[in-house]
C-alpha cells in the first residue's frame, strides 16, 4: 500500500452565514483517478480552493508526500506540484500552443527566448500524450477540448504530482471525452494522481478508481468505485438515505387537465440538451429532476428564449410560435427566475422596489412609467405577500440575504401575471421557513391556473408539489413520471442512476 501523495485532515472553512467545509478528510494516492462528487453547496469548489491556496482553511492540515504544508496561493501550489485545469481553461488564447505551455519560464539562449526549443519540446510533450497539433498556431484557433489538453500538458510539464481537473467534460462531445480519458490513463500510468470533479455519472464510472462524496460541507465517505452502485452514489450525494419521509406530507397534488400552454417538439440545442418532447399545461406543476449539469437549466432557458434552440419547434394551440428572445417569451406570458440570482437575475445597483417592478416596467416600455403611488402599492403588496425582510423597498437589493433576494426575484415575475412561470432552483441556499413559503406559493399559483416549471435538486421538494416529473440525465430527457401517489424519491433516483424508468 503506497503512501498517499496528498492527505487533508479535519479541514474546516466557514464564511459569514455558511459553513462551507466541516471537518473534511481527503486522501489521494499516486496513479489513481479520484472523483470528487457532491451537489451544489456540497463544498467541492471550496475544497479545491483550499488545495490550490486561494483560501486558507480555518482548521485542519494538508500534507503533501507526508510533509505538512500551508499553501499560500496558486503559484505556491503549482510549485508544490498541485496543478489545476479549470472548466474555462485559464490559458491565453492569443498566444501559440507552445508558448502557453512554457510562458513564464521560456528557455533562453544567448539572452533571447529560444523559440525553436520551445516548439520542439512542446511538440514532444504533446506527442507523448498522442496529440499531434501545430504548436505554432494560436491556442484560440483550437476547440476548448484541445485547449484543455494543452493546459494538462502544461501542468504535467510543471511536474504536477496532483492534477485537479475541474469539470473538464462539460463542453466536450463524446469523441473529445474519449481522448481526454486516454490522456488521463496515460498520466495515471506515469504515477500522477488525478482529482476528477464532475457530475456526469457514466464518466465517473468509466474512468475513476475511487470516489469521495461531500454533502453540505461534510464528508459522506470515500469508496472504491467498484463497490458503489450508481443508485447508492446518487443517494449519498442527494442525501436521500437520510431522507426523512417524515417531512413528506401525504398531499399529492390533484391531477390537472388544464389547457395546453406550450408543446415542445424535439426542442434541443447542441452541447446543452438533446431534443426533448414536452407538454406544459395551465395549472400544472412540472418538476425537472436530475443532477447538476443534466440539462435542466438549459432546457428551461430554451423555453424562455434565453438561448436559441437548434432543433425542434414550440407550439401553442394556435400553431407554432417562435420564441427566440426573452422579449418574445415574456410577450407570450412566460416568466423565468434564473439559477444565478446575482449574475443573471438581480440588478445589484438598484433598490428592492426597482428590481421588483423591472419586468413589468420593461414590458410597458419607458414612456409609460408606473405612477409612484401605483408602484408603491404594488411593491408593498408583494413585499408583504412574500414576507420580504427587511420590508424596506428603498434598500439596495445587494444588502438582502439570499433568501430575500430570491423572493424579490419571484415578486418581479409574479407581478407580470404570467401564464407559465419557470423557477430554476428557487429554494437553493434558503432557510426552511422561506423554502416552505415558496413551495406553498407555487401550489397556490398552480391552483389559480398558472403553469409552473419547477427545477430543483431536492427530490422531496419536487415530489411535494409537482404533478409530473421530467427526469434528466447527462443532457437528455430520460423519463416522464406521473406523480400519482406511488412515485417516490427512490424511484426518481433509480431513473437518474440508470437512465430509464424501469426500477
Amino acid at each position, binding site marked *: 500500500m503506497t503512501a498517499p501523495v496528498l492527505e487533508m485532515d479535519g479541514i474546516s472553512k466557514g464564511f459569514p452565514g455558511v459553513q462551507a467545509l466541516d471537518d473534511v478528510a481527503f486522501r489521494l494516492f499516486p496513479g489513481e483517478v479520484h472523483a470528487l462528487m457532491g451537489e451544489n453547496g456540497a463544498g467541492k*469548489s471550496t475544497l479545491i480552493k483550499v488545495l490550490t491556496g486561494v*483560501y486558507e482553511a480555518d482548521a485542519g492540515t494538508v500534507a503533501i508526500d507526508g510533509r505538512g504544508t500551508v499553501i499560500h496561493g496558486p503559484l505556491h501550489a503549482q510549485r508544490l506540484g498541485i496543478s489545476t485545469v479549470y472548466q*474555462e481553461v485559464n490559458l491565453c488564447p492569443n498566444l501559440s500552443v507552445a508558448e502557453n505551455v512554457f510562458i513564464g519560464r521560456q528557455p533562453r539562449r544567448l539572452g533571447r527566448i529560444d523559440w525553436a526549443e520551445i516548439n520542439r519540446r512542446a511538440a514532444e510533450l504533446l506527442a507523448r500524450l498522442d496529440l499531434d497539433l501545430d504548436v505554432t498556431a494560436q491556442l484560440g484557433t483550437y476547440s476548448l477540448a484541445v485547449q484543455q489538453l494543452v493546459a494538462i500538458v502544461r501542468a504535467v510539464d510543471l511536474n504536477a504530482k496532483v492534477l485537479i481537473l475541474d469539470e473538464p467534460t462539460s463542453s466536450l462531445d463524446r469523441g473529445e471525452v474519449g481522448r481526454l480519458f486516454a490522456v488521463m490513463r496515460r498520466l495515471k500510468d506515469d504515477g500522477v494522481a488525478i482529482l476528477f470533479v464532475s457530475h456526469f455519472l457514466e464518466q465517473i464510472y468509466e474512468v475513476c478508481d475511487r470516489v469521495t462524496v461531500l454533502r453540505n460541507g461534510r464528508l459522506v465517505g470515500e469508496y472504491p468505485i467498484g463497490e458503489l452502485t450508481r443508485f447508492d452514489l446518487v443517494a449519498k450525494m442527494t442525501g436521500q438515505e437520510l431522507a426523512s419521509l417524515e417531512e413528506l406530507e401525504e398531499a399529492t397534488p390533484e391531477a390537472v387537465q388544464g389547457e395546453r400552454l406550450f408543446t415542445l417538439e424535439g426542442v434541443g440545442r447542441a452541447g446543452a440538451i438533446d431534443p426533448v418532447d414536452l407538454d406544459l399545461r395551465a395549472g400544472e406543476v412540472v418538476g425537472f429532476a436530475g443532477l447538476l449539469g443534466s440539462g435542466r437549466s438549459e432546457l428551461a432557458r430554451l423555453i424562455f428564449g434565453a438561448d436559441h434552440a437548434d432543433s425542434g419547434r414550440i407550439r401553442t394551440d394556435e400553431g407554432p410560435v417562435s420564441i427566440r428572445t*426573452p422579449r418574445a417569451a415574456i*410577450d407570450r406570458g412566460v416568466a423565468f427566475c434564473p439559477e444565478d440570482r446575482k449574475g443573471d437575475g438581480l440588478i445589484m445597483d*438598484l433598490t428592492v422596489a426597482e428590481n421588483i417592478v423591472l419586468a413589468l416596467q420593461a414590458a410597458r416600455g419607458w414612456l409609460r412609467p408606473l405612477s409612484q403611488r401605483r408602484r408603491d402599492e404594488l411593491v408593498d403588496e408583494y413585499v408583504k405577500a412574500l414576507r420580504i425582510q427587511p420590508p424596506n423597498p428603498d434598500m439596495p437589493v445587494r444588502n438582502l440575504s439570499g433568501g430575500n433576494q430570491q423572493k424579490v426575484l419571484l415578486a418581479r415575475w409574479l407581478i407580470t401575471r404570467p401564464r407559465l412561470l419557470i423557477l430554476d432552483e428557487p429554494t437553493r441556499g434558503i432557510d426552511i421557513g422561506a423554502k416552505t413559503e415558496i413551495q406553498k406559493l407555487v401550489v397556490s399559483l398552480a391552483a389559480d391556473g398558472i403553469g409552473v416549471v419547477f427545477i430543483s435538486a431536492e427530490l422531496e421538494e419536487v415530489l411535494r408539489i409537482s404533478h409530473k416529473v421530467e427526469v434528466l440525465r447527462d443532457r437528455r430527457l430520460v423519463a416522464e413520471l406521473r406523480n400519482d401517489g406511488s412515485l417516490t424519491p427512490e424511484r426518481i433516483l433509480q431513473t437518474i442512476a440508470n437512465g430509464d424508468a424501469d426500477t
Partner: protein
Amino acid sequence: MNRAALTSRLAAFARSSLFWPVTVLVAMLLGNVIFTHGFLAIHVRQGHLYGSLIDILLFGAPLILVALGMTIVIATGGIDLSVGATVAISGALACYLISKGHGLFVAIGVAVVASLLLGAWNGLLVTRLGIQPIIATLILMVAGRGVAQLITGGQIITINDQDYKLIGGGYWLGLPFAIILVAIALGVTVALTRRTALGMLLESVGGNAEASRLVGIRAAGLIVLAYAFCGLCAGIAGLMISSNTLSADGNHAGLWIELDAILAVVLGGTALTGGRFSLAGTVVGALIIQTLDTTIYTAGIPPRTTLVFEAVVVTIVCLLQSPAFRAKVMRRRRRRAKEPAPATSKQEVTA
C-alpha cells in the same frame, strides 16, 4: 424635522456617493469666501445680475450641459469622446448658415438636428456594429473636427446677429440666458429620466446587461437614444459657446471638453462602468472644475497653472473613491488593533 430624522438623513448623505464631491466643492467655495473679498457678493447692473457665483455658473454652463449628456451615455456603460467635435460642428453650422443669410431658427434647427444625427450615428456603431464605445466615438472625434474645420474653411466665421447672441451671451429676467438654458436642460433631463422609466431602464442596462436582457429590455433602442441625447446636449452647448463670441472657431471650439465632461461625471460619483447615475453629482462635478478655474483666476494665480491644480484635484477625488486606496489607508490606521488578517486572498478563482 426632529433630530433623529435629521441625523439619519445626514448619515445617509455621508454614505452616498455624493458626499465627497459636495464636500470638496463646499471646501473650495469656503476657501474662496475666506481668501477673496466679496466672493459671495452679487451686484445688479442695468437689470442684470453679476458676481463671482454667477460667473461660475455662466462659464460652466456649456460644460454642465455636455456633462449631462455624457452622464446618460456613461450610465449605459459607454462613453462619448466625440462631444467636442459635435460642439464645433454645431456652432460652425449655425454661424455658416446665418452668414449666408438664412434665418436664425433655420440655422439653429439645422445645428440641433445635425447634433442629434451625429449622436445617433455613434449609437448605431455601438449597437449595430458592436464596436466598443471608446473606439466608435474616437472616429467621430477625429473626423468630426475635420468636418468642423471644413465648414468654417479653417477660419473663424464671425456674424452679426444680436438675436443669436442671446443663447450664450444674453440675459433674460436678470440672469444670463445660458444659466436659464442649463436649468431648463437639467429639468428636462431629470423629467426624462426620473419621471419616465427611462432612467431605471438605462441603469439596468448599464448595471447588468445580461439580466436586463432576461427581463425583456431591448437595450439597443435605449442606447441609441442615450447617444443621440448626448449629441443633442453637445450641440446646444456648441450654440452657447459660439453665440457668446458671435463666431465659430472650427479649430478650437469644444477642444478637450469631452475630457472635462467625463471628469465631471466621474467626480460626481457615477461609475465609468455604468449603472446607477447621478445628475446632481455630475452638476457638482462640473461646478468643481469650474470653481477651480474661477478660483485660480480670482486668486491671481497664473491661469497656466490651472491644469496642474485640476490634475491634483482629480487625482485626490479618484483616490478617495478607490476602495483599494481607502483600504490601504485604513489598514495603516488599524495596524495596532488585533484584527485577524483576512484569510481569503484577493485572487478570485472561478472554479
